[in-house]
């Protein structure tokens, strides 16, 4: 379970998010909100990428007291991913799976399913935005962490990749992962898989 307690995020004196308390069980959640409502900020806070006040914990593992153990359980794919253009997808994959302690061979099936095999040995500087997105999703899915955060995951993807990603997400959901997927589109293919919604409005998050 992912627990939020008195979580507050502000830039300078402007409050972006204020979450008094929120508990999330393993499931697929659609993080819904308008542009600029704080969806990406919310996901980045959970991913441990930006600082915040309050507590976020996965089970008994607090993100601030035990950051390494906490982050071991979480992966994140950015809405507009950027990677070092001089490294290949394979080099980045090896770099990140080594950090997570996952064997690289576990990624082979995912590489084929996501449809990035043709480009994996090329430098990311030659990738299209769709291929960059696929790489970010590959890095998020590899190792099947218990919590997966996907920020606008289907934007720029082709229809074949959209179907593959939906299948992978469905499998992850069934295997007991907690997935937070942000999107502001009602007709997003992943949204139809989700039966729980997190509304980001008025600087807070409510579950429905």
């Amino acid at each position, binding site marked *: 379970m992912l627990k939020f307690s008195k979580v507050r995020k502000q830039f300078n004196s402007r409050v972006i998010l204020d979450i008094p308390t929120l508990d999330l069980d393993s499931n697929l959640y659609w993080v819904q909100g308008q542009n600029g409502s704080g969806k990406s900020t919310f996901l980045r806070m959970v991913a441990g990428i930006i600082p915040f006040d309050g507590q976020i914990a996965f089970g008994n593992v607090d993100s601030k007291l035990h*950051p*390494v153990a906490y982050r071991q359980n979480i992966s994140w794919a950015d809405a507009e991913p950027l990677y*070092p*253009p*001089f490294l290949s997808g394979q080099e980045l994959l*090896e770099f990140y799976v080594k*950090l997570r302690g996952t064997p690289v061979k576990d990624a082979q099936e995912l590489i084929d399913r996501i449809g990035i095999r043709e480009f994996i040995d090329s430098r990311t*500087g030659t990738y299209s935005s769709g291929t960059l997105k696929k790489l970010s999703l590959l890095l998020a899915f590899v190792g099947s962490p218990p919590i997966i955060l996907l920020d606008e995951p289907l934007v720029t993807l082709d229809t074949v990749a959209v179907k593959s990603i939906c299948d992978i997400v469905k499998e992850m959901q069934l295997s007991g992962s907690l997935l937070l997927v942000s999107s502001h589109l009602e007709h997003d293919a992943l949204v139809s898989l989700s039966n729980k919604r997190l509304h980001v409005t008025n600087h807070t998050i409510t579950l429905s």
Partner: protein
Amino acid sequence: MLKSTGTSILVCALWLLYVLKCLSFVTRSLNKPDNTFLYVINRTSFLHRLIACIILMTILFFPVGWYGFLIVGVALYHHYYVSALLLLMYLILLCVGPALRIVYKMRHPGTPMYRESRRPRLSFGYPGVLIHYIAAQQKIIFITIKIFTCSLLYFFTRINIPEAYDIQFPYLFFSLGIMANGIIIHRIRSFEENYMLPYRGAPVSLHKRLADYLLFYLIILLPEIITLATLTPVHLHYQDAVYFALCAFGLVVLMNSICFLEDFTMNQYLRIILLVLCLQYYFVVASLLSVLYIIYIVTAIIIFYRSFNLFEKRPKPRSGL
């Protein structure tokens, strides 16, 4: 310069480095989304584009290149006609060559910055990624800074003789060169925040992150360390060489940690570094380099542990808005 071949080659090499840096600046500016409107120049003739780019390169080269044209004048005055002609051709080439490259780049905007090339797949840790970054995107500024720092160190320490041995003067200039490394450090931090963001959320302890930085900056300082080694023991005592190296290491690690205090602009950052250099003046005058490097390293470690998790890149307002 007209009489010494060595000096001529050195000056010409420095001009070339400067021009390559200018070329890199222009091509990067052209690749920015904000500047895509500039591609409208492709509607004009090739000659028009070439002249525009030659004027651009001449303006960019002028702050350094005016000296070259002055030397051409001096060479003609002293009847060194061949030298004058060669130098003039070289200066023209430095303006026309990059101009042709810019024209080509503008004509082929879809050309990827990174072409496929066969190279061995590398196994590396985080320091390896940062070294890749410098090799791929910062090599000209890196080489320039290293030549600058090592030259300052070498020439100001070479004047040391056993009868008039002094380390204060060489160290002050050496630390000025080390400060120039701050430009690369600031760019590295910017690269990390833009291109290595997932690594920030990766399950890596602060100890490991710090150890990676320490290893990386030790590698970065190898040219200075080698220069120091060549100066010992004739011009620099072994102990002083070790203090120089430790102070340089402490300063770059501190400059790295300062980047975690706040999302500083380059100007703000350089001002802070300048302040650090002013503060170190007391330690240099009092011959306390043995204390200075400890202060640098301890301060750097404290700042790093306190600031790493609190750092956040601020969204910057877009220019023109």
